[in-house]
């Protein structure tokens, strides 16, 4: 579970996130007004894709070296096993995104309030992405190179997080109240913390068939 030995696993999502976001000032326009207008969507879509790419590290090596079978055989509830895996995944790929996000906020000409809410919304939203991803990854890990199928399965589930995350940043940027959107994100988080591990544990059992 210590992915930190393999530095690439931690760095790749962050570098990907940074590069995707920085493509927009280069390609669309460097004008501050336009950039700050599209920033919420751009940052959240990039975070979504970075998480999606990092999901492979959740079970892939475990599946290849057979330790996924040992995890399923661990004499404890598989919900706890999945929860531990997801927590490790979030710490190694979600948290770095949150840490780098203020820099990207500056790059996208967000104001102080906007940057604060970017971090907040990522903090509440990225665990949801990891939790939902664990379900999709459990279902697809035994299928070999399943990146495309995983995206098709998981991306639609990410849409609510994207909507509320991006609109919270947009509202904060315009000086409006954003607590409603964050509350919705919080609701999504508590819903997925309580239910997604159960579904992901069932998916894990399918993975070792």
């Amino acid at each position, binding site marked *: 579970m*210590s*992915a930190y030995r393999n530095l690439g696993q931690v760095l790749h999502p962050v570098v990907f996130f940074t590069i995707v976001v920085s493509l927009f000032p280069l390609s669309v326009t460097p004008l501050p007004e336009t950039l700050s207008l599209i920033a919420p969507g751009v940052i959240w879509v990039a975070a979504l894709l970075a998480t999606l790419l990092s999901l492979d590290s959740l079970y892939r*090596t475990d599946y290849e*070296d057979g330790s996924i079978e040992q995890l*399923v*055989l661990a*004499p404890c509830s598989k919900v706890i096993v999945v929860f531990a895996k997801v927590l490790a995944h979030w710490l190694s790929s979600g948290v770095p995104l949150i840490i780098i996000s203020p820099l990207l906020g500056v790059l996208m000409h967000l104001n102080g309030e906007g940057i604060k809410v970017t971090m907040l919304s990522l903090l509440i939203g990225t665990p949801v992405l990891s939790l939902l991803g664990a379900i999709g990854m459990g279902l697809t890990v035994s299928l070999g190179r399943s990146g495309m199928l995983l995206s098709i399965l998981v991306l639609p589930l990410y849409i609510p997080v994207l909507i509320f995350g991006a609109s919270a940043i947009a509202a904060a940027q315009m000086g409006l109240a954003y607590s409603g959107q964050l509350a919705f994100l919080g609701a999504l988080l508590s819903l997925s913390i309580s239910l997604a591990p159960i579904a992901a544990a069932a998916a894990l059992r399918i993975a070792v068939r």
Partner: protein
Amino acid sequence: MSELSHDQPLEQEFPLVQLNALECVRSDRVLFTDLSTNVLSGEIMQIEGPNGAGKTSLIRILCGFLTPAAGEVSFKGKSIHEDVIFYQSHLLYIGHSHGVKAELTVMENLTFYAGISSTKSDANLSEAIKGVGLYGYEDALCSDLSAGQRRRVALARLLITDASLWILDEPFVALDKKGVVWLESLLIAHAKQGGAVIFTSHQDFISHASIKRLNINEFACIPDF
């Protein structure tokens, strides 16, 4: 006096593992059907059969990964799916892919498995690493080890486990001659202590220990043309 013999402890009435009329179907092919046998405490059972006969499928059924098309597996008289955690706390499985993490060191791998499986309370991890002949490699990354050495890391779990039932899929693969002899004596010692071992292998035991053989081909379904 005869009444006394009825008051045997409950555990004695059941064989440790009971395979009851198992049938396995993989991609529309019936691999074996009506496979029944018992494994008692103190027994070593070798599952034999040609490639594709269903040895690994049978092992996976025994571990509870696969559900048999018919029949059931019982452990101490209880279906293994009835009380999964109870069964899993008495089971040690080392599969063909042995679950040794390449990016962790030998010691970290063993510590991890000591944490997630039932382990002897007096287990000494460095003794176990010494026991499998990897003394001096404690802090070596498993990605730097050879296939045989990695197999030994996985087998070190046998020295610290508390499980009574060992299920091993091709445990002798990649082991050198000395390693094979060592593993055989370890399996025999475990059986002598009242444990049970189920393993698959194409090789025969070198030593003359009495082991039970199960040839899957005897239960193969004769296709009707």
